[in-house]
Structures are given as C-alpha cells and as structure tokens.
C-alpha cells in the first residue's frame, strides 16, 4: 500500500461501504469548494465591466440646429466620436445612385437614416477596419474619392452615406441607436 501511489488516501483499509461513504463526503466537500471558488470568481471578473457611472453616461442629447447642409459635427459619445452630417441634396442623390448590390456592405441611404430625416447621416466616427477616426467631418478635411470619409490610417474610403467603397475596412461606418426628439435634436444611445 505504501508503494501504491494511486491509492494515497489515509491509513488502513476500509470496508467497501465505509469507502463509499468516505468518498461521498470527500466529493461533497470538493464540490462545495469548487462551487464556492466559482461563485467568488464572478465578482472578480465582473468588476472589470463598465461601472454604474459609465453606464449612466451612455445616452446624450445633441442639438443639430446649427449644422448647415454640407456641414458635419463631431460629438463624443461613450468616449467615441460620432459624426452628425447634414447631407446636401446632391450628396443624397449621389448616395442613392449607387447600385446597392455592388457594395461590399449593401445598405441603402434610407436604411442608414431615419424616415423623414434622410438628410441627417449620424454614424460612429470609427473606421471599421481598426478603429481610427476617418477624416471628412471637420472643416477643410479631405472627404476621399467618394465624397464621404477617408481614413488616413490604412486608406479606407467611405461614400456620402458613409458606406465602405474601397480600402481594407469590411463594414460601413456603424449607425448608433438614436431617435429624433424634435426636427433638430436627437438622443443618441
């Protein structure tokens, strides 16, 4: 018995029924310890999720009254830039002319805006390639070959509906959840 490594436990031999009872208690103890450890692990992991104050900032109200057609503003939402762009009629027409089937991420302008507010293109200003902020929202910035946005990091080009047209980005600029409170103000998030 001393040389039998697989049979380490305690001393002496036990009867078969004793063995079973003993096993039950060991297993129950071990199971409780395992469940306890798992229960404690959860708060240790969950503490890294956003805290209550961060979640509370998750929705913001934005006033769009001052944005003229052809202009855009940048807003910070959850620490991310949001582009709110007042499209001119020409820009809307350009976006609508593109055959949807030819796009990498097929979406129409209407799907990317709110009904009755198709001139307001509100997207995250985060390139879907690796997260840089594309140019094109600020005054005087290049809008790229397709008149929308241009990401200087790896050369992704977005059109006037902020859809990906060329370059490495896989998706169109993401449209966040938002709702119009009045014709010129929105709640994002």
């Amino acid at each position, binding site marked *: *018995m001393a040389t039998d490594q697989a049979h380490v*436990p*305690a*001393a*002496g*031999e036990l009867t078969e029924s004793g063995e079973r009872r*003993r096993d039950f*208690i*060991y297993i*129950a*103890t071990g199971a*409780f*310890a395992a469940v*306890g450890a798992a*229960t404690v692990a959860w708060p240790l992991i969950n503490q890294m999720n956003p805290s*209550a*104050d961060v979640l*509370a*900032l998750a929705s913001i109200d934005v006033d769009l009254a001052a944005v003229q057609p052809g202009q855009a503003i940048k807003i910070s939402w959850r620490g991310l830039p949001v582009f709110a762009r007042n499209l001119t009629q020409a820009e809307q027409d350009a976006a609508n002319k593109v055959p949807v089937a030819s796009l990498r991420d097929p979406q129409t302008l209407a799907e990317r805006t709110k009904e009755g507010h198709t001139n307001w293109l509100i997207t995250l200003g985060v390139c879907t390639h690796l997260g840089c902020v594309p140019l094109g929202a600020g005054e005087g910035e290049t809008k790229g070959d397709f008149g929308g946005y241009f990401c200087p990091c790896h050369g992704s080009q977005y059109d006037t509906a902020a859809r990906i047209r060329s370059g490495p980005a896989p998706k169109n600029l993401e449209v966040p959840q938002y709702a119009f409170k009045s014709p010129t103000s929105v709640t994002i998030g």
Partner: protein
Amino acid sequence: MGRLIAFLAPFAIGGVFVLALLVGAFMPRDAVTPDPTLALHKEAKEVSFQSDGPFGTYDRAQLQRGFKVYREVCSACHSLHQVAFRDLAALGFTQAEIKAIAKTNEQPTIDEKTGEPAMRPGLPSDKFYGPYANEVAARAANNNALPPDLSLMTKAREHGNRYVYSLLTGYANAPAGWKVPDGLNYNPYFKSINIAMPAPLASEGQVEYTDGTKPTVDQMAKDVAAFLTWTAEPKLVERHRTGFGAVIFLLIMTGLGYLSYRRVWAEIKYKTKKGEVASA
C-alpha cells in the same frame, strides 16, 4: 571578554529602557483641569432604524421622506457630493421623476460659444452639486463655519444614524453656568457642545409629507437620518443579502470539511484514542 559583553548586553539595554519608563511612570503628574465639555456631552439616543441589524433593509417610503427633508431643509447649506441623481432609483423614484429632480440642480459647465463659466440643468448622470461653489464661499455664507458634506455623515460619526437623529432633536437650553458664544447653539450631542448650525428642524409640518405620515420634528429627524444612512451605504441591503448566502454556504462547506478531516484522520487519531488498534 566578548562573551561577557554578549551576556550583559541584554540586561544593560533592557535596564535602560525599563528605567526610562519607570522614571516617567513615577513622575508626579500635573493637575489636569477636566474638559468641561465631557461632563455635558451625551451619547447618541437609543432609536432604531429598519436598516439596523444583520437583516436590515431600507424603508423606501421613509427614504423618500428623508430625501424631501434633505432637499427642502438641509440642502440649503449642506452638499451631498458623493450621490448621483441616478442613484435615487434605489429610493423608488421613476426615471422621469429622477430627470425632473436632476433638472432643478444647476451644474457648472462652460458656455459653448464663449468658453465662459456657465450653468446648465442637471442630468440623471450628474452628482448633486452645491449649494456652494467651494469651501470659501461656504464659510463666507455661514459666519466662517463650514457645513460638512452629508454623503458619508452616518459613517463618519460614532453611532451614525442615531447620532444624526440625536443631533437634530438634541437642541436645548444651555445649563446654568455654561456660556454659549454668540452665533453658536447649545447641543449636548455635538462633540464640542457648541454648534454653529441652528436647529434646522424647528416646527411640526416644516416639510409637507405626501404619504400621510405626520411630519413631527421627531419623524423628520428620523427620516432624514434614515436617508443619510442610505447615502453613506447605498449597498447595505445587497451586502446583507449576499452575506446571508455566503455565511450559510461557508457553514455547510466548513461542516463538510470537518467531516472529511475526521475521516482522513480516523485511523490515526480517533481510533487510537478509543483504544481500537487498527491493523494494516
């Protein structure tokens, strides 16, 4: 020689320390005039709250009343900087109510066009701001006394909520011979007896309750003490609940651990104690 030094060193060092202490101990003491506030100071009154004890919870209706007292009375001078309006959901306020409450609390910001300091209506995500912009302003408005922030008051004083209740209901006339300086008030529950704050809850019905509770001074003091217990320890109920589960679980686990321990040792300790000799 070295050995002798090593032998004597502890006695010498020990002797010096002991002597230095005993000289101090036998030195006659100067007569000390007892602090007169000690004789007047009173321990917090015995009063119970629903949040007391291991199963304590918060009475939401009471917290709402207490919040009303804070808003209408205390907040004139006392800040509540650690608490956010969103936290009021725990008192049972709806999101719309919280928005409305937050709106009335002006928050400092900068004017978007000029960059000048400005004020904007509060949002649920904001914390309570004010009533004073800074400590200097607070002192200037209060005869050089600083009204402390109340967020953590019940944890920052012995006996917490009982202290707050006792202080609010403890104003009295000074006993004969006790001089209360001008601008101060007599309150034996306050640490230094003379308190700058005049009795804030002075008359019945000072705050109008909407839930039918009679707003006596005693009731208002109790309610605001309960509210301040919540502001200091908003997770109390969660803590009590989690603790209950944790302790029960640990007791069972420890019990099983004890049985395992007894079994592992059965052959060695307990059987030999009973005289039953196990054989291998």
